[in-house]
């Protein structure tokens, strides 16, 4: 008989849930800002409103969700204690103030306010990194999830350090911010931080929720390692403005790790015991085509502007961003948020009663239709923005913004729904059996 330590306790409600509940505001904001898309949107990827939209999603929605989810995961799953809940609450408070301030300042291209918001963001990321790094160092369970989260944390620090130097560039004209530098920063943030963290967390959550037999496999290690190496290479070379062949080669290299990850996920799904997919499984399945399309469009963007107007070079980059950030990252985060929030609320309300009295199950705390609506709208929004960008249609891009905003509202509704009293008092099968 082999005894392993029991899983650790979840951090307090107040550390995790505020971040998860507030994060979709970033998505709604991005959707509404897309309504203001104009001709500049298709011409320059660094147009102020595009910078504001990308950061509303990347910092406002995605990073905020990942921070909340990782406080939970680091402690409850990896057994790494968050050493100060007070510091975690402070980090969350600073973050939720800094993000809207940064988005507003970027939209107005007010470099003074951008610098102030950037300083607050730096404080937030620094505090988060200290808390996450110490929890990772103390984690009792090491493995691919631990490795991936550590890689993601490095990605966050590098991406943010990279971006922070631009305060000097914008304010004191230290160096010109070229398309290559922008691309390197965006990939460090999108793939180095968000992507790698999502790949690694999925290695824990997908088999767990789909009841897949966990066999030791090297695939997740290879996928995350290759992705980390590729994004490092990409971000090191792109600032030097390489020619098309090198850009295409780097883009292809960048697709290998995620492709290996996707292969492993699909293989696991085929072995799953939970035949009817829950929201997490559906979200993961919805994210995979977005990832595939993002890879194809990303290679197109590396080539330049194939089949589109040369005067509008941002088209392919925008489509790539919409598919990767809105579609792949977005769908995955919807799945994770909609599992973690009801789980935490169940723990808060019913854990102490479990085994002593009949209690609702987690599916009694959720509104499945609202969950699917949120997922569907967010994926549809990303396809619409991507199609609008490729076609050069501002109408489609704005329509995608409306769909994104509606998706964000639906997601908020689906999350808050779990706070309502359980809508079913049915006894699960086991409880019925025990009382008969």
């Amino acid at each position, binding site marked *: 008989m082999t005894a392993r330590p029991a899983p650790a306790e979840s951090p307090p409600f107040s550390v995790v849930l505020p971040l998860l509940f507030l994060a979709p505001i970033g998505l709604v904001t991005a959707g509404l800002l897309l309504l203001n898309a104009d001709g500049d949107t298709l011409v320059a990827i660094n147009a102020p409103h595009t910078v504001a939209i990308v950061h509303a999603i990347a910092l406002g929605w995605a990073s905020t969700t990942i921070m909340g989810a990782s406080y939970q995961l680091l402690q409850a799953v990896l057994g790494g204690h968050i050493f100060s809940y007070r510091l975690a609450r402070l980090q969350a408070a600073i973050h939720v103030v800094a993000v809207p301030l940064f988005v507003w300042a970027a939209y107005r291209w007010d470099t003074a306010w951008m610098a102030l918001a950037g300083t607050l963001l730096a404080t937030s990321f620094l505090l988060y990194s200290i808390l996450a790094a110490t929890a990772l160092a103390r984690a009792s369970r090491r493995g691919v999830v631990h490795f991936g989260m550590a890689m993601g944390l490095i990605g966050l620090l590098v991406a943010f350090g990279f971006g922070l130097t631009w305060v000097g560039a914008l304010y004191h004209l230290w160096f010109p911010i070229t398309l290559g530098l922008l691309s390197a920063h965006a990939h460090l943030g999108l793939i180095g931080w968000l992507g790698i963290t999502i790949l690694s967390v999925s290695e824990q959550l997908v088999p767990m929720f789909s009841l897949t037999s966990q066999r030791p496999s090297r695939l997740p290690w290879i996928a995350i390692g290759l992705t980390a190496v590729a994004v490092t290479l990409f971000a090191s070379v792109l600032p030097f403005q390489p020619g098309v062949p090198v850009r295409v080669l780097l883009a292809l290299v960048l697709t290998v790790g995620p492709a290996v990850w996707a292969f492993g996920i699909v293989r696991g799904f085929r072995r799953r015991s939970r035949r009817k997919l829950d929201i997490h499984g559906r979200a993961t399945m919805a994210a995979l085509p977005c990832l595939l399309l993002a890879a194809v469009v990303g290679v197109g963007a590396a080539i330049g502007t194939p089949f589109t107007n040369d005067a509008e070079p941002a088209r392919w980059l925008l489509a790539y961003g919409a598919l990767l950030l809105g579609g792949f990252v977005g769908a995955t985060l919807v799945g994770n948020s909609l599992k973690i929030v009801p789980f935490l609320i169940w723990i808060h309300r019913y854990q102490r009663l479990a085994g*002593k009295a009949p209690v609702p199950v987690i599916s009694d705390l959720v509104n499945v239709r609202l969950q699917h609506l949120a997922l569907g709208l967010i994926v549809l929004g990303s396809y619409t923005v991507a199609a609008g960008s490729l076609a050069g249609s501002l109408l489609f891009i704005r329509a995608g913004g409306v769909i994104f905003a509606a998706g964000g509202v639906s997601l908020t509704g689906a999350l808050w729904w779990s706070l309502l009293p359980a809508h079913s008092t049915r006894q699960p099968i086991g409880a019925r059996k025990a009382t008969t």
Partner: protein
Amino acid sequence: MTIAAEVANKLHSVVDPELGIDVVELGLVYEILAEGGHLHVSMTTTSDHCPMGDIMLAAARACLASGWPDHHVSVEYTFEPRWSPAMISELGRDMLGLPPAA
């Protein structure tokens, strides 16, 4: 009915809140020992590092303590053998949409 069978029956009321299936039907209960005034249960989780694990353990302990207040109850984890879906009962398989075991 033996006390071990009664314990197993009682454990049907400990339900995995994520799956809505009890720990017995999921095949998570490996061993039930009843000797004198002692009840001992060995159980497992469906996945490594399952965050529901400690909740299920505490729920099983509370469930048995209320059913046998005069007994010393111990519930502990074991991870050998590793749980697999083959351990799910026919009823559990039906609930998960799995075909009957061969």
